[in-house]
């Protein structure tokens, strides 16, 4: 199976702090991979570097679309990365709080649609059709993530778990083939976590690959086919859930910080 995401010796320095240290990682079509590590290990920094929000100080990132050629993507702007088919959520929820739930999703459709200013002003048949499609596609996504009842609600007024799902929905609207989730279950109650679990599996079944940062080990172990473990910016282990569970290095990294 050919990898859709290849990360090669990625490094990131903040002043004197080395947040990522020559990290390698690969993700194949249709698999769920987890990235775990103690707090401050550099997981979110990894996401920010591969999605173009930070400019990594070293290494390369390649993306291979399902029917396309392998392309280097570091140095691209975040919007270009998203357009290439890799979308993400944020650890601390970043919704458009003053916009409605539906509009949040509609923003995700932006990069797959193309109405211009003139189109918007004259509202020709093409624009009207496109606008209708945006609304319908967005609604379909809301149904999928179980928020169809809150279409016109302001995003801030959603309960916490729903906000997290909305962020996933917004990312889905950009039609990614690889979805990056940064601690999607953080702050969720068991029922919300269960719903999230189902949602992620249904996405995988549709053929989407998912890279997941998560502290909830139960979720990680049950969902992922492979796990990467990092600590202090370095990769310290990789393998199947069973291998990771029994890896002494991992146990040490976690116990070392938890005690």
């Amino acid at each position: 199976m050919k990898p859709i995401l290849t990360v090669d010796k990625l490094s990131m320095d903040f002043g004197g702090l080395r947040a990522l240290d020559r990290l390698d990682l690969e993700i194949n079509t249709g698999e769920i991979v987890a990235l775990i590590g103690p707090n401050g290990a550099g997981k979110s920094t990894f996401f920010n570097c591969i999605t173009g929000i930070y400019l990594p100080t070293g290494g390369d990132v390649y993306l291979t679309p399902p029917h396309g050629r392998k392309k280097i993507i570091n140095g691209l702007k975040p919007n270009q990365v998203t357009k290439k088919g890799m979308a993400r959520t944020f650890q601390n929820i970043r919704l458009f709080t003053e916009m409605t739930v539906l509009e949040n999703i509609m923003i995700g459709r932006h990069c797959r649609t193309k109405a211009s200013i003139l189109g918007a002003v004259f509202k020709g048949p093409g624009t009207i059709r496109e606008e209708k499609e945006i609304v319908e596609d967005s609604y379909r996504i809301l149904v999928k993530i179980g928020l169809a009842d809150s279409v016109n609600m302001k995003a801030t007024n959603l309960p916490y778990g729903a906000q997290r799902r909305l962020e996933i929905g917004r990312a889905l609207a950009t039609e990614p083939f690889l979805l990056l989730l940064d601690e999607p279950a953080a702050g969720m109650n068991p029922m919300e976590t269960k719903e999230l679990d189902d949602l992620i599996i249904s996405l995988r079944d549709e053929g989407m690959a998912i890279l997941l940062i998560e502290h909830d080990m139960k979720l990680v172990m049950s969902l992922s086919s492979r796990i990467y473990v990092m600590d202090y910016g370095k990769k310290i282990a990789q393998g199947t859930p069973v291998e990771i569970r029994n890896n002494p290095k991992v146990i040490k990294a976690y116990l070392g910080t938890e005690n």
Partner: protein
Amino acid sequence: MEYFLELFLGGMTRGSIYALIALGYTMVYGIIGLINFAHGEIYMIGAFTALITASVLTIFGLNPFAILVLAGLAAVVYSSAYGFTIEKVAYKPLRNAPRLSPLISAIGMSIFLQNYVLLAQTSDFMPFPNLIPEFAFMEPWAHIIGSSEIVILAVTAVAMVLLTLLIKFTRIGKAMRATAQDRKMAMLVGVNINRVISVTFIIGSSLAAIGGLLIASHIGQINFYIGFIAGIKAFTAAVLGGIGSIPGAVLGSFVLGWTESFATGYISSDYEDVFAFSLLVLILIFRPAGILGRSESKKV
């Protein structure tokens, strides 16, 4: 050469005044991340208070030195009071608002204060008495540098030293530095943020008032509008040096003072303000972190 020296010292005098104002911008920015647009007006109010005090005291027939001291004191007290009040009225309620809200509030405050002085006093230029005496020992150099310029340089130097000592060694100075670095952390370790912010405004306003008094006495006239241009220039200086950095503000002020002095001296005085504004625009576009500032990367 003499002309060069004159321009150099003239630029340095200008720079000193800018520095006194720029410090207020930089300190407030360092603590609460706000461009205090009304800071120029505080300087203007300082100058007006000094003028009013001096005039009243002159009529009472006090001796010039006493007048200078009392007018300076009144300017400092009143400017601080204004700075303190402005923060409480226009900025404090907006501490958790979106970033642009306090800035808009500050612009409103600036316009309000300008027109407040315009309406309560006058729109004309008011002659400002020369409070600084001509020193006899300055006679030989009078064509290069005047007595009031020497006083401006000296007062600025003293103020800088005092400020540095205050920030380095006092309790409140340490609290200020802590707050500037990380407000949440400072709060957690028991720093009273409201007090730190108020003190920052008071110190910044006092320095601006001193600047207002000195420049008004040096130039000899003031009106309600002097704060606007001076404020923008001082802000330019603060950005030039790296906003948030105290030595940066001083350095930036001198650089700006010299730029203006040499540009008007050697090129043309028509475009005096254009030089400053162009410098501002160029700095912000090409090096928004300034000379001494570090470019901040936002954590995501």
